[in-house]
């Protein structure tokens, strides 16, 4: 479905240059902090976080209605991560927004700290749902969207899922359920970085044609460059403004796994990793030089 052509408002909704610069800076912050935090843990999911950095930045600094002093505000927009292993890229944003103390961030993964490789809603109030086991989040998002309707609350539920996650059967149970129940305030985002732990997604269990699958399941679909903050923000603003939609939405965000660090990009050997100090310095230099 060609939303952009059908909707003349998209241009009006494009963020201004200052906002675009801010979103790029926040994505850069997420990447730099990811390198710093994984240095504490000595192992982590750099590349999964890097592919999602712009998605995090746009959702948290442009799209979502939030209340950082009241993380459990009932009318806040919700964000769930099927690929919970990218949480290391989200924690710095939560800290930047004031949800987390900097000292907490600095003790990432240390004994008793609330921040682990996968996010825990019982330890971090700003996390809307715990994750770690791939495939649950879209179902949980369905429950939140349904609850919003029952409670007559006006919030959106965003669920970011990995492309490898589409191999989980439960995702498709949720896909049927959301369409059948007309959960129009549910927005899924596939971080299509092309890789999973054992290699290229399409070599392991192919998931194409992705858009046709979601369309056939009754979802409104969109494609976007997942690293283009202006396009992402414009699309998410337009989807939020469309209050009459009955179909749930799936956005295919084309991304690059490891985006920002040349030797990690599309290299399957970096799904999990640790950068020794020399490599970390090169990674930081490359991230710093990303265009703003």
């Amino acid at each position, binding site marked *: 479905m060609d939303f952009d052509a059908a909707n003349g408002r998209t241009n009006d909704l494009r963020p201004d240059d200052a906002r675009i610069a801010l979103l790029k800076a926040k994505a850069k912050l997420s990447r730099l902090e990811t390198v710093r935090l994984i240095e504490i843990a000595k192992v982590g999911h750099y590349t999964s976080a890097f592919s999602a950095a712009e998605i995090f930045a746009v959702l948290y600094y442009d799209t979502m209605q939030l209340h950082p002093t009241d993380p459990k505000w009932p009318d806040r927009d919700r964000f769930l991560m099927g690929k919970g292993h990218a949480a290391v890229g989200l924690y710095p944003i939560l800290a930047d927004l004031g949800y987390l103390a900097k000292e907490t961030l600095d003790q990432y993964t240390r004994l008793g700290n609330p921040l682990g490789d996968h996010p825990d809603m*019982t330890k971090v109030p700003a996390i809307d*749902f715990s994750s770690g086991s791939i495939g*649950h989040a879209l179902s949980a998002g369905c429950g939140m969207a349904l609850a919003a309707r*029952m409670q007559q609350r006006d919030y959106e539920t965003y669920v970011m899922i990995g492309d490898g996650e589409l191999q989980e059967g439960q995702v498709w149970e949720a896909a049927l359920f959301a369409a059948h129940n007309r959960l129009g305030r549910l927005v899924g985002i596939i971080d299509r970085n092309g890789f999973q732990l054992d290699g290229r997604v399409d070599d392991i269990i192919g998931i194409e044609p992705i858009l046709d699958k979601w369309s056939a399941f009754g979802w409104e679909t969109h494609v976007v460059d997942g690293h283009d903050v202006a396009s992402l923000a414009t699309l998410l603003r337009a989807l939020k403004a469309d209050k009459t939609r009955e179909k749930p939405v799936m956005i295919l965000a084309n991304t690059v796994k490891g985006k920002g660090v040349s030797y990690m990009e599309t290299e399957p050997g970096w799904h999990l990793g640790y950068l020794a100090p020399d490599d970390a310095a090169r990674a930081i230099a490359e991230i710093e030089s990303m265009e703003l």
Partner: protein
Amino acid sequence: MTRPLSEGSWQYRQLNSKMPGLDYLSDALLALVSAGEPVVAGTADLQYSNGLSKFARMCPERFVQFGISEQNMVSAAAGMAAAGMRPYVATFASFLALLCCEQIRMDVAYSALPVRLIGHHAGISLGFYGTSHHATEDLAITRSIAGLTVVAPADGSQLASVIAASADYPEPIYMRIQRGRDPDVYERGTPFVFGKAIKHLTGSDLVIVACGSTVHPALLAARSLNAKGYSIGMIDMATVKPLDRDAVLDAAANARAVLTVEEHNVLGGLGSAVAEVLADEGLPVKFRRHGIYDQYSLIAPPTHLYAHYKLDAAGIEEIARQLAESGNRQPIVS
């Protein structure tokens, strides 16, 4: 909304003639809705098996039909609970506790969300439907999940009381029930307290500890033996977790033997829970776990299976008498 069942259909007649216990499920949930509780009821294509069809008819705006997708149901229920609702989701115990084990652990228990999981037709109560539909592992599984309360009501009245008590209970709960055809043990409205055993009889020769479907036959067995001159106590351990340790210690202190009886594998369920308390405390009481002895059930109508596995009143009486009279601690394999 699916069209209602025709009154001449087999399913309609079953629903309206033989399931008083499960009818209480809808009634109890509707009472909570009337009291203003944010209750949602859901099922996975089993509204006529668990009686939630009545709830669906009376309160369609709070009913969610998930279709045959149990894992989606459990995770979505957790999502609803995270957004302030109180979901009660029901399906066969075999699918709920086994198929959805990981969703229960991650999304419900680890996330500490007040979801109520109702595993019905538990144990071997689905008789000749076979092992796919039997649940003789669900207590062991759910009991080992941190943060999850596990209850096994003995009849429809107790189920209704559990649901009433669950309104302000903050933890997630797994409720294990049978087919809704259990004979009445309790009067309607008997209050239920989580974590508190119900002592029906005291005895010095032996105390039977039962839960769920074995409470009624265990009571009959105890009364029968008492009429024959034995001194047999009987406890309903409706809350399997957290276990009422004091009730176990009291039984062990005042009787020479303790017998647990459950419609479940003897590994991991009620018997194991009681054994853990006795072993922890080093109590030298004679003890036996009676139930399904680590095997898959035969095919048969449920009542035939209960007789075969000595889980009916006569079978429990036989096991209890042997334990009361002998020092034999070996399991009696059916």
